[in-house]
């Protein structure tokens, strides 16, 4: 066996070996990014495994829902009654937030005013005025609903019947998920009605958000996609 050939084979093996090492390194360092550099490696592995499982199941759920939708469509194809029911079902699903919806509307971005510090703040001002609070979001959502918004999401978290917006220390909890500034609020509905309602003198935007420089942008968009609520809606106490 010539020396050249030996070197070639060893070189190829080294390619495979280092490729594997680099991939492994990437995976492990990414994993410690998710869980932090905690000491308990067993718990860490457990957490990562559950997370993976959750993601897999979530993808599966989406696929199953698609399949269900198709089966429903096929079933209602040649029957007028059931196709009416099907449309009704679609509408209701859009209403309670279990399907992605699309339409015209407004996208509002509000963020904490980072230019204000303890040094340059006015004497009678309070620094907390310059932050976005849960109550600001609540009032904004309320105004949007009042103006006829049909679907609303904050940072892609759909606002549904059971959604609560609460304060959780320095973040805001929406649907039990932690959110922080900036907040992107998407609302599907009549653009004029929504803009008119939220920009009116004396309204929330004029009175508070503009005044403290919390509004980053307000955009009219013709095609807004609002994702579905990605939790599970459980009824325990409601009896049909």
């Amino acid at each position, binding site marked *: *066996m010539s*020396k*050249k*050939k*030996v*070197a*070639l*084979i*060893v*070189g*190829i*093996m*080294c*390619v*495979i*070996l*280092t*490729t*594997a*090492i*680099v*991939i*492994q390194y*990437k*995976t*492990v360092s*990414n*994993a410690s990014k998710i869980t932090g550099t905690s000491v308990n490696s067993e718990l860490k*592995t457990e957490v*990562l*495994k559950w997370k*993976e499982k959750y993601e897999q199941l979530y993808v599966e759920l989406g696929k199953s829902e698609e399949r269900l939708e198709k089966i429903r469509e096929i079933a209602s194809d040649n029957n007028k009654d059931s196709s009416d029911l099907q449309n009704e079902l679609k509408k209701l699903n859009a209403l309670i937030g279990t399907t992605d919806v699309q339409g015209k509307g407004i996208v509002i971005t509000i963020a904490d005013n980072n230019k204000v510090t303890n040094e340059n703040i006015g004497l009678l001002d309070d620094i907390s005025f310059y932050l976005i609070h849960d109550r600001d979001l609540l009032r904004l959502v309320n105004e949007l609903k009042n103006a006829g918004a049909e679907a609303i999401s904050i940072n892609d978290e759909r606002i549904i019947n059971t959604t609560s917006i609460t304060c959780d220390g320095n973040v805001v909890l929406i649907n039990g998920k932690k959110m922080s500034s900036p907040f992107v609020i998407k609302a599907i509905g009549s653009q004029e009605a929504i803009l008119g309602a939220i920009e009116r003198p004396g309204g929330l935007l004029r009175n508070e958000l503009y005044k403290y420089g919390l509004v980053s942008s307000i955009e009219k968009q013709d095609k807004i996609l609002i994702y579905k609520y990605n939790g599970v809606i459980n009824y325990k106490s409601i009896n049909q």
Partner: protein
Amino acid sequence: MIILAICIGCVLGAIIGINLPMIPYSYSSYLAISIVAALDSVLGGITSTLNGKFNFKIFVSGFFGNAILSILLTYLGEKLNVDIYVGAVVVFVGRMFNNLGMIRRYYIDKWSNKKSEEKISTENKAK
């Protein structure tokens, strides 16, 4: 020659690895054990080359065979709730140290031989 091949292989492998996607975390323990097995095979291959006993078939079958076998053993261990991979790691790392020791001895011998030859030749010249 072989050292050059190893260097080029490592650089190429690193470039390929950076561009490849990550694997799911639950498989990373299998990849880790197969890396140890492969590393052992490569070191074994280098040692046998230095000794002049390099055999292509043994080397390649050891490289892939050990990696796959260790993955299977790890899998079995997981099913039986025994840490079999620990045993595999002990064996592979032990062999790695053996091989490294042989490589070290080979180069030290070579180096000291050279030194003594030089000494003899300078003495001859002086005469």
